[in-house]
C-alpha cells in the first residue's frame, strides 16, 4: 500500500529525514514511535507533499507520488490527520464535513452519516464553530475530515496529544472502526498504550531513520527494545 524508499527531506539547510525506508501493507495499522525531534512529523509531512522530498521515492499502491503537490497525494488516496489537529476555527462542524464530503463522495464507504456513527460526539456539535470545540472534539473532527475524502491510507500524527485518557480511548475506538473498514493507517504516537492498542506493527524512528520494525506483539514482549530506543520501560 505505502512503500517508502531512501526518503530524504528537511527544511532550508537542515536535512531531517536521512533516508527512510518503510512499508505499510494494505489494511494494516503501523504505529510509528520515536522521541521528540527525530523526524516523525517531517516524515508525515513529506509523505503528504507538504514538505518536498530531496531524494528517495514514495509510492501509494505502486503509484509514484514523490514530490507531488498535497492535493495530488490526497487524490491518490491519502488522508491526513495532522499534529495539532488544524481544523479551521471559523468553520462549523457541518461546514467541515460538507467540504470534505464533496471531495470524497462516492469514492468509498465513508459518508457523513457513517462518519457520525463512528464519531457520534460530532453529531451533537454540528452547528458549533470548530474553534469552540474541545481538544478531543477537534481531534474527532480532524479524523472525520480526513475520512470523508474516502482515503485508502490515513496518516495520523499524534492523535492523542493533549487529550484526556477517556477521550484517547474514543480515538482508539475510531481507529479500530477505520481499520475494520479496510483503511490502512500510519499512526505517529507518543502514547504507547494507544499505539499498542491499535497497531499491528511498530516502527521506531531515530535521527531521521527507521531503526526498528517488528510486530506489536514482538515489540511488547521485549521491553529492552522499547527501553533502548525510546528511553521508556
Amino acid at each position, binding site marked *: 500500500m505505502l512503500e517508502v524508499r531512501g526518503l530524504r527531506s528537511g527544511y532550508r539547510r537542515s536535512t531531517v529525514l536521512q533516508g527512510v525506508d518503510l512499508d505499510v501493507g494494505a489494511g494494516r495499522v503501523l504505529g510509528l514511535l520515536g522521541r521528540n525531534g527525530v523526524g516523525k512529523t517531517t516524515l508525515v509531512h513529506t509523505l503528504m507533499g507538504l514538505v518536498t522530498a530531496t531524494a528517495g521515492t514514495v509510492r501509494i499502491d505502486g503509484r509514484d507520488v514523490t514530490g507531488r503537490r*498535497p*492535493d495530488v497525494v490526497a487524490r491518490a488516496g491519502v488522508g491526513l490527520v495532522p499534529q495539532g489537529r*488544524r481544523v*479551521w476555527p*471559523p468553520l462549523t462542524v457541518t461546514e467541515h464535513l460538507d*467540504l470534505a464530503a464533496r471531495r470524497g463522495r462516492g469514492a468509498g464507504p465513508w459518508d457523513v452519516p457513517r462518519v457520525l456513527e463512528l464519531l457520534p460526539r460530532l453529531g451533537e456539535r454540528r452547528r458549533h464553530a470548530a474553534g469552540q470545540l474541545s481538544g478531543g472534539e477537534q481531534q474527532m473532527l480532524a479524523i472525520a*475530515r480526513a475520512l470523508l475524502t474516502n482515503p485508502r491510507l490515513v496518516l495520523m500524527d499524534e492523535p492523542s496529544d493533549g487529550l484526556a485518557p477517556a477521550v484517547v480511548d474514543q480515538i482508539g475506538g475510531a481507529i479500530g472502526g477505520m481499520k475494520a473498514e479496510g483503511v490502512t493507517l500510519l499512526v505517529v504516537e507518543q502514547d504507547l498504550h494507544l499505539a499498542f492498542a491499535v497497531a499491528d506493527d511498530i516502527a521506531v524512528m531515530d535521527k531521521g531513520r527507521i531503526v526498528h520494525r517488528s510486530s506489536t506483539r514482538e515489540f511488547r514482549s521485549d521491553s529492552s527494545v522499547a527501553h533502548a530506543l525510546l528511553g521508556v520501560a
Partner: protein
Amino acid sequence: MIGWFDANLVSILNGFAIGSLLFILAVGLSIVFGMMDVLNLAHGAFFLVGSYLSVTFLAGASWGGFLTALGVAALVGLLAGGVLSGMTEPLARRPILDQALLTLGISLIVAEVLSIVYGNDVRSVRPPPGLRGSTDVAGDAYPTYRLLLIGIGLALALVVWLVVERTSVGALVRASVADREMVSAMGIDNRKVKVAVLGLGSMLATVAGVLAAPVYGARPGLDETILLLALVVIVIGGLGSIRGALIGALVIGQVESLGRALLPDLASFILFGTLALVLVVRPRGLFAGKVAHS
C-alpha cells in the same frame, strides 16, 4: 447632538460613500492576502484602470456607456486577476515581499501605460443621466449618484458576505484563509482557488473604479491614494475577514470625510492615528481571519 448631526450630515453621508467604495476594494485585497499571502499592490492600479475605462466608454454620457464600462471593467479585472495569479505562482514559495514587489512592479507599469494613453490631466466623468442632480436628505441637498453609490456598496457588501459566510464556496474560501495546507491535504488544488479569488477580487477593484469615476474622476496618482486607504482598511479590519473589511471601510470612510471636515489640518494624522491605535490595542486587526500555526 441632533444639531451636530444635522450640521455634518453631508460629511457623514460622504463618509458612507467612501466607506462603501473602500469596502468593495478592500474585501478582495483582504481575502487574497489572508488566503494566499499574496499582497496585491496592483489593486489600486486595477481600480484606476476601471476609472479610465469609464472615460473611454463615455460612461458619463449615457447609461449605455456606463453599463458598457462596468461590463468591460468586470471582464478586464477578472482577466487581470487570473493573469496575476499565474504570475505570482512561481514565487509562491518565496517570501511575501517577493510577491508584493512583483505586484508593485505591475502596478507601476500599469500606471505608466495609463498615463501615456490618457495623459496626466484630471479626467472627470459625469454620473449617468438621471443621477446628476441632488436629492433632499433631511433638508440637505445631496448628490443623487453618491446615494446610489452608498446603496450599491451596501448591496455588494451583503452579497459578498452572504457568499463567503453562507455558501459552500465561501466555506472553502474561509477554510483557505484559516489553513490552506489542510485544504490541499483534502485534495483541493489551492491554485484554482487562488485564480478564482484573485480574479473576482480584481474584478471588484475595476468595478469600484468605474463606480467611483463620477466622484473622483480619473487621474494619475489616484491608484496610490486608493491603495493606501484600502491597505489601512484591511490592517484595521484584520486580514481575511469580511466583517473586518466592512467595519474598517466604514471607519476609514468617516475618518476621511468627517475627519477632514471637522479637523482639516489633522486629516492625515487622524487616518494613521486610527491605524496606530488599532494596532496597539489589537495587533492582528479588529477581526483577524487568519490563524497562526507553527
